[in-house]
């Protein structure tokens, strides 16, 4: 359908509610990378990220009838994703012992990066972000990578907007310090550029 390209997310989900599976396909196309990278940045193994991304879309499929256009579709989608993420983290912390707070946020030595065809650039950024406080980090990630508005972030994390602002501000300041303090930053940058696929 040609006019799907111009349709908003909200229109598409409503169309899907009415039974148009093409609408869902379109939505999926729009958001698959974003959702995948959402999980990829927050979860250990890429395979796990893939599963979680799949679960997110399946949840959208199943819950389509219950969807009510309250906020943007984007915030609805990320709320689902965040809930799935939280469940996964809880399961992980229950299953394994001695779980640290940053368990699901591995360093560069994580086995996930060893899989063929999977790589990420800017590892030092990941390391720096890892050093941030958990709550602040989440806000930063949602802002910088998922590009959610303050309102949407507030909706996903279920905190007031002002909390979002203060956390974001704190995160940015802190990150600036961390990145400034990281030795050989420019060198790393160059290396990253070279090794990027």
């Amino acid at each position, binding site marked *: 359908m040609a006019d799907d390209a111009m349709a908003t997310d909200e229109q598409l989900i409503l169309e899907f509610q009415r039974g148009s599976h093409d609408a869902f396909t379109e939505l999926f196309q729009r958001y698959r990378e974003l959702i995948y990278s959402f999980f990829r940045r927050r979860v250990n193994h890429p395979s796990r990220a893939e599963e979680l991304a799949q679960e997110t879309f399946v949840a959208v499929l199943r819950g389509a009838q219950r969807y009510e256009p309250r906020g943007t579709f984007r915030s609805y989608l990320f709320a689902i994703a965040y809930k799935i993420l939280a469940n996964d983290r809880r399961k992980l912390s229950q299953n394994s012992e001695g779980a640290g707070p940053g368990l699901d946020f591995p360093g560069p030595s994580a086995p996930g990066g060893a899989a063929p065809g999977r790589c990420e650039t800017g590892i030092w950024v990941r390391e720096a972000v890892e050093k941030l406080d958990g709550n602040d980090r989440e806000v930063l990630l949602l802002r910088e990578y998922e590009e959610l*508005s303050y309102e949407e972030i507030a909706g996903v994390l279920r905190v007031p907007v002002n909390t979002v602002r203060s956390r974001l501000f704190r995160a940015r300041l802190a990150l*600036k310090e961390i990145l400034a303090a990281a030795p050989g930053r420019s060198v790393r940058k160059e290396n990253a550029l070279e090794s990027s696929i």
Partner: protein
Amino acid sequence: MAYLDGEIAADRAAEIAQHMQQCAECKALAADFRNLSQELLAWEIEGPPARLTEQVNERAAAVKQTTAKLEVIEETPLRRWFGKIGALKTKPWAWASAGALAMLLLMAGGISTLSRRASAPSAYVASRDGASLSTAMAHGSAQDEVRRQLVNKREEVEAMEQKLAQARVASSLDPSDGQRYTVEIKPGEAQAAGGTLPQSSPGVAPMIARTASLSLVAKDFAAVEAAVKAVVSRHAGYIGELNSTTPPDAAKTFSATLRVPSAQLEPTLAELKQLGRVDQESQSGEEVTKQYVDLAARLKNARATEERLLGVLRNNTGKVKDVLEVENEISRVRGEIEEMEADRRALESRVDFATVQLSVTEEYKASLNGAPLSLGTRLHNSFVAGYHGVVESVIGLLAWLLESGPTLLLWAAILFSLVRWPVRWAWRRVRRAVKPAPKPAAA
């Protein structure tokens, strides 16, 4: 920072932009943040694998199939209905309304049972003929009671019918029988009636024993007793019996049996009626002529017998045994004579003197302070009655529950099991049809 993120209102944005041109610190901070964002973009993630797309598409297709199948399956209205019933069991409001409905049914059943009970005794009381008692017999638990009542009623009816037959016989004024007539005189008709006497046996003047009864309502009760006595003595009569009651909360009554000469009966009654308002009046006369005549005849015979026996005794000096026999006979006859003479005297008295049954009631003025019981006593009585009422109602409810409970439970269980298994079976069939069939190996 909001300005940087584009999260600020346009007018404020303009302000901030202007400010930043002037404030070096803010400008520097803004630059830092911008660089930061740029740097963060260096952390790139590879795109999702194609597998993700495939898997999601698969799931989407499965869901599509499911909804399509569900639409097909639900075509049958019956299945749809069963499905809805099955879905209802998850809804709390369905349970709540079902519970409320059950409660209503229980209450309705209880009320109807209790009301049936309550009306049954009054059915016994209200019915006068056997017909309605027979219908009351349909109520199972009191059948014996009803049968007994029915038998009693029948006996009563038969007795009444007998009396009625007798009365009919009696009312046909046959001169040859001893007759009795009763005349019910309404107040006011007394003067007109006058008292017509039937013809008795020819040759003998009719002897009537007259009785009258009179009920009065007197205003001036205190004077009544004295007045009655005065009237009676004026008419050369006497008082046979006298009764007076003064209950605290009701009208005073005065009743007396007066005997006045028969000739004086009418004047006496007339004077008595002056004492108050006549409530009820009746007169009756019993014709005792025949009895008197019989009695006189028997008396004569008896006397003659006595004479003869005495003559026998005088004349025949026979054996001692015979003499003794005769003397026994004489004493027996004498005894009879005495009796008969007494009877005759009584009859004569009755004829000579009429009997008046008088009852006088005071005109009752209910007093304001009529309650005999004190306030405390009344409250105490009410409290006790209330307590009894509560106990009775609780016991009654428990008894009803015990009585009806098992029956209701039985039927509820039967109905529930009747409905449940088909619903479950239908629901399972729906579910089974909906579950996606195992897919062949994905391409």
